[in-house]
């Protein structure tokens, strides 16, 4: 029920824009942290699209998640500037410390680990973004320390 009203409200907000699918998926994800399976059928009915077509879009774009994330989302930048400044070591140390790889979530559901191409803060490379906090000039060792602040 909640999904239904959220989706129809969001569609109404999008007004006269003829292409509502991607903006709608973005808002569903923003609200729930991922795109719950149940919402796909509701969206399909509301926008008069097939579920197949919606899955096609969801799986094309890196932004859309089909599974829920942990409480905190860690994004390690692997853009060029960060790569040159040692992002690989930063990623490995976080991955080693949490015992998970890219795209995985820790068993206690506290952290999800992702790698992203450039967040536009290349001047302070290497960058680690936790939730919406940007940590710059990180190093392999420091990265582990950053995680202590997110319990």
């Amino acid at each position, binding site marked *: 029920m909640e999904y239904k009203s959220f989706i129809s409200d969001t569609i109404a907000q999008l007004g006269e*824009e*003829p*292409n*509502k*699918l*991607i*903006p709608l*998926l*973005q808002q569903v994800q923003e609200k729930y942290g991922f795109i719950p399976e149940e919402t796909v059928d509701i969206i399909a009915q509301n926008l008069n699209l097939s579920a197949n077509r919606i899955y*096609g*879009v969801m799986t*094309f*774009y*890196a*932004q*859309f998640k089909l599974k829920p994330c942990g409480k905190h989302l860690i994004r390690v930048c*692997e*853009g*060029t*500037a960060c*790569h*040159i*400044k*040692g992002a*690989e*070591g*930063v990623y*490995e*140390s976080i991955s*080693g410390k949490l015992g998970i790889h890219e795209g995985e979530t820790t068993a206690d559901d506290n952290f999800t680990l992702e790698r*992203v*191409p*450039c*967040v*536009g*803060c*290349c*001047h*302070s*490379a290497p960058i680690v973004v936790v939730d*919406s906090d*940007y*940590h*710059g000039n990180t*190093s*392999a*060792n420091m*990265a*582990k320390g950053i995680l202590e602040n997110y319990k």
Partner: protein
Amino acid sequence: MNKITSIEQLEKIQQEKQALWSSGIKLVPVCGVCIGGQKLAQAMRDEVTRQNIADKVQIVETGCQGFCKMGPLVNILPPEGISQWQNGTLYTKVKVEDAAEIISKSVMGPEVIERLLYKNAKTNQRIPVIKDIPFYSKQSKYVLERCGVINPDDITDYIAWGGYQAAHKIIKTMTPETVIGEVTQSGIRGRGGAGFPTGIKWKFCRQSPGPDKFMICNADEGDPGAFMDRAVLEGDPHSVLEGMIIGAYAIGANYGYVYVRAEYPLAVKRVRQAIKQAKEYGLLGNNIFGSDFSFDIGIKMGAGAFVCGEETALISSIEDRRGMPRPRPPFPVAVGLRGKPTCINNVETLANLANIINKGAKWYTGIGTEKNYGTKVFSLAGAVRNVGLVEVPLGATLQELIFDIGGGAEKGRKFKAVQLGGPSGGCLPEKLLDIKIGYDSLIQAGAIMGSGGVIVIDNKSCMVEVARYFTSFCQKESCGKCTPCRIGLMRMKELLERITSGEGQKGDIELLIELANSIKDTSLCGLGQTAPNPVLSTIRQFRHEYEAHIREKECPAHYCKPLVKFMVDTDKCKACGQCIPACPVEAVKGKKGEKVTIDVTLCTKCRSCIEACPFDAIV
């Protein structure tokens, strides 16, 4: 708010704002996008409240001012006012604790706080005036003129600088054809990478039949390591909107989109705010300036796909489909968004337009060199001392860009190569640094102008690894529609991985070249057609590094993990101890004051110690 319909109203807002600025209220621009900048701006505001001087001092949270390496930055404006900010003083690496002192001494009083001034690394002198800092003195800021000094969330700041007067001029006094003529004469070429002449693109779009057309701003900025467009959108969003209005009027569009990456949340917020204000002032919407020209802009957020920067993929994405490119022709100027003629321009291209209209094509062609007029914004990143955002006239040399402005390689290391144009671009070695920056000269040298990402690579990075990195990036981002790109890049990546892990075989280089050339020739879109460039250019300029990996199973830069063991060069080690806490696995043994050693059984080769060492002592 009454909608603006005349130049008088626009000028009235301009004069009121300028009067406010010269009435003695002190503006203090603080860069709010540096890491730590927002906290600093808040601390400065709190201090203003605490000292109860809100009627005298106004803290302005700005976009990027360029000198990111030295951030957070605070500007102390000169008595001449904000438009002459380059005559003012810059405080660098400012901490929250410095806020009170800056306000008491330098804002309310005339004192200069010596320790916060930029220190010239060569002469050890502190520099009190911004324009004397080498990083600024060699730049020509036109696109970035206001970026980092104005409040991007306030449209009247932009209007005070003469904003929206170009839009007024074209709508009230010029026909679309004369606008196109002026822009064509200015010779401006697209700043998004391909360098297509903007005036000609507009002409084609204008000539395409049909009443409905679209104007799209490409703010996808997918090149990793580039942040020019982000800085313009966050620092001066109205300049992009005004460019879109000019373009829309010229081609005859009534609706437009800004397509911006989702990875730039602040840029999205700033553009949204700018659109809202422009509508309130009647600068977007129906009957702009009371004319019969109407134009409105919506925002579309990307969803994390590099290929969506390509114009036909971008259109697919706005249309709610998988962001896959399609063959051109037909070009979007003929058949674009929802089948209608569509003009797509890059953020920086658009941000140049108000200047061209206000000052004229002649003025514009006075900057730069033949066929390459105007300036270009570059983001300097990687192993360069002054990372940041710079704007130089075309025709400046790479040497000036990287050494005079950028300060050369950092940490006393040796410059090895510069990578231009991101995953579609190429690497140039030191001997080619005299090249004048321009679309054609860079292609001749084996690189491209690209969107403006400049990554400096020092002697600690392996060029084969750099090629592997870019290939792997493009392979991941390939949309999968055409075979050469989808499978060819995968094979190329595997070959490069084989070489960097010491398993390379005789003939691998030739195989790479063959594969690269066929991917270039047969891919559907720009992604595949240019993805082999980093490989080809590194083979051309650094073939010896490939050969060392294959024949001697050695990585000359000591980078590729399977081929290296980390050791301390005891001649260079100064026992400073900085590497010890940097190691995440306690493999660096010793203590401060003693030369260290590395326990290879524990070492994971993460390179943290190499990055931490100021003396280049770990090899």
